[in-house]
C-alpha cells in the first residue's frame, strides 16, 4: 500500500539568498502509513514545526518532494489547496488564530471554506465540539471570553470539523494543566479511532508520547535522527540524552531498580508496563 504521506529528500531553507539563510530541515525522508499514530519529538528549533507544515503544503520544500497518497502535493495550486482539507493542521498555540464573533462561527470557518451545505456544516460543528468536550453553552459566546483551555479546544475543534483524513497537531497540550492535557489526548485518540484517521503529534512531553503513539520520530538539528516504536527509541537512552531530550521518568525508575539488582526489564516506558514488571516480580497478583 502506498503510504498516506511521504517525504522524499525534503529540505527547507528559510530566507534563502540572504545573510539570514538557515536550514529548517535537511534531507528528510519519511513514510507515514494510513491509520498510524506518529509522535514527533526533538529539541527546540530542531525543525519539527517546519517539517509538519510541509505535510499539508503550507510551505513548499526548497528541495525534494512531498506526496499525499502517491501524488505530489505541490504539483499545482489546486492540489495544494485540496490537500489542506484532507490534512488538518493544528498549529502551536492555535488559540491565537480565533477570530469570529462566536465559537460556533469560528469552528464553522473551515467547513465553510470547503463549500459544504449549511446542514452539513451544522452537523460537523456540533460533532467537533462534542469531540473536544466543549459544552453547548459556550457555542454562542465570543471565543475571546473562554478560558485558555477552552480556547485551545475550540481551535482544535475548528480543524476537526473539516474531518481531515490526517490530523496533525503541533504541541496540542503545551501550557495546559495535567487534567486538560489528558483530556485533549483522549479526544485525539477518540477522533483517530472513530474516523480511522492518521494522527501526527508533536510534543515535548516524553510521558505523553510514550503512552500515546505507536511510532515515534526524533528530530535533531533539522534531520531525522531516530525512527521506531517508543520501546526502540527509549532503549537508546544515551543517544536520546545527547540530543537534549530525556526518556520517560518510568524508564529511569526501572533503570535504577535494575541497577539496584532487581531482575526487571528496563526498557519499559509507561506506568502500566512497570506495574506489570513489578507484579511479575512478586509472583503475580496485582495488589500493590
Amino acid at each position, binding site marked *: 500500500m502506498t503510504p498516506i504521506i511521504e517525504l522524499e529528500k525534503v529540505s527547507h531553507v*528559510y*530566507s534563502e*539568498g*540572504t*545573510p*539570514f539563510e538557515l536550514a529548517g530541515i535537511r534531507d528528510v525522508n519519511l513514510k507515514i502509513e494510513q491509520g498510524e499514530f506518529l509522535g514527533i519529538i526533538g529539541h527546540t528549533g530542531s525543525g519539527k514545526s517546519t517539517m509538519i*507544515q510541509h505535510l*499539508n503544503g*503550507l*510551505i513548499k520544500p526548497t528541495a525534494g518532494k512531498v506526496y499525499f497518497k502517491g501524488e505530489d502535493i505541490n504539483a499545482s495550486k489546486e492540489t495544494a*489547496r485540496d490537500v*489542506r*482539507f484532507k490534512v*488538518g*493542521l493544528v*498549529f502551536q498555540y*492555535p488559540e*491565537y*488564530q*480565533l*477570530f469570529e464573533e462566536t465559537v460556533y462561527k469560528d469552528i464553522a*470557518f*473551515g467547513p465553510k*471554506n*470547503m463549500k459544504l451545505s449549511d446542514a452539513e456544516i451544522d452537523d460537523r460543528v456540533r460533532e467537533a465540539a462534542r469531540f473536544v468536550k466543549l459544552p453547548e453553552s459556550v457555542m454562542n459566546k465570543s471565543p*475571546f471570553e473562554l478560558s485558555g483551555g477552552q480556547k485551545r479546544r475550540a481551535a482544535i475543534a*475548528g*480543524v476537526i470539523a*473539516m474531518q481531515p483524513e490526517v490530523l496533525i497537531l503541533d504541541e496540542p497540550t503545551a501550557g495546559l494543566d495535567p487534567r486538560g492535557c489528558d483530556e485533549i489526548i483522549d479526544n485525539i485518540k477518540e477522533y483517530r479511532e472513530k474516523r480511522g484517521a492518521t494522527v501526527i503529534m508533536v510534543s515535548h512531553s516524553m510521558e505523553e508520547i510514550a503512552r500515546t503513539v505507536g511510532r515515534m520520530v526524533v528530530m535533531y538539528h533539522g534531520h531525522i535522527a531516530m525512527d521506531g516504536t517508543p520501546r526502540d527509541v527509549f532503549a537508546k537512552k544515551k543517544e536520546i540524552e545527547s540530543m537534549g531530550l530525556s526518556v520517560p521518568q518510568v524508564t529511569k525508575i526501572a533503570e535504577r531498580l535494575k541497577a539496584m539488582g532487581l531482575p526487571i526489564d528496563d526498557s519499559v516506558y509507561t506506568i502500566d508496563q512497570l506495574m506489570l514488571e513489578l507484579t511479575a516480580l512478586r509472583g503475580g497478583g496485582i495488589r500493590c
Partner: protein
Amino acid sequence: MLRDITLGQYFPGSSVIHNLDPRTKLVVVFVYIVLLFVGNSFVSYIVLGALLAACIAASGIKLKMLLRGIKPVIIILIFTAVLNIFFTPGTPVFTLWRISVTYEGLRMAAYLIIRIVMLITGTLLLTYTTSPLALTDGLEALMRPLKKIKVPVHELTMMMSIALKFIPILIEETDKIMSAQKARGADFETGNLIQKAKAMMPLLIPLFISSLRRAEELAMAMESRCYHGDDGRTRMKQLVFAGRDYAAFALTAVTAAVMITLAVFGF
C-alpha cells in the same frame, strides 16, 4: 514569504561601518543626502558614488541586498524618468511625431535616477548596518538640544524604537496566523477586491488582538522594571566617538568641500 522583506532590517556584522557610532552615521547620511541634491554634474555624482561604493565595500553588505530596496519604487522611477525625458524643453536630440526628446530631458532623467538610487542605497546601508536600538539612541543623542524647547525627545525615540522592534515580530505573527488560517482553507489570493478585503478579516482580527495584548504586556513589563521615562535614566552602552568616527567626519567634510566646489564651478 513576508519575512523576506528587508526594509528597515538590520544585518549584524563587525565591519568598520557597523562599528561607527550611530550619531556619526546619522550625520554622515544626512550630509550625504544634502550633497545628492547639491550635485548637478556627472563628475560630482562620480565623486559621491565613489564614497558610497567605498562604504558599501567596507560594510561587507552584498550589493544585491541593497538593490532589492529599489524594487518597490522602480515603477515610479521609470514613470518620472519618462516624463522628464519627453517634457523637458531644450535642444531636441530627435523628434517622435510631435514630442521631442531633448538633451536636457535625458540629463534630467539620468540625474533623477542616479539621485533616487543613491538615496535609497545610502539610507539602506545605514539601516542594514545599524541596529534599531543604536539608531534610536543616536537619534535621541542628536536631538537632545531640542529638549530645551520642550520637545519630548526621549518619549519620541522610545516610541520609535518600540515600533521598530515590533515590526519583525508583527511580520512573524502575520505569517503564522496566515498559515494557520490557510490550514483551515482560507484563501487570501483569489477573488475581487471586496472578497479579498473580507478574506483579510481572519488575519486582521487575531493580529489586532495580539498587538493590543502585546502592547499591554510590554507596558506592564516596563513598569514592573521601574521604567519611568527619561529623568535620571542611565545607559548601559554610552555612546563615545572613536578615531574612526573622526576619520569619517573628515572624509565627509572633504567630500562635501569637493562637491560644493564642483557645484560652484558648474562641473
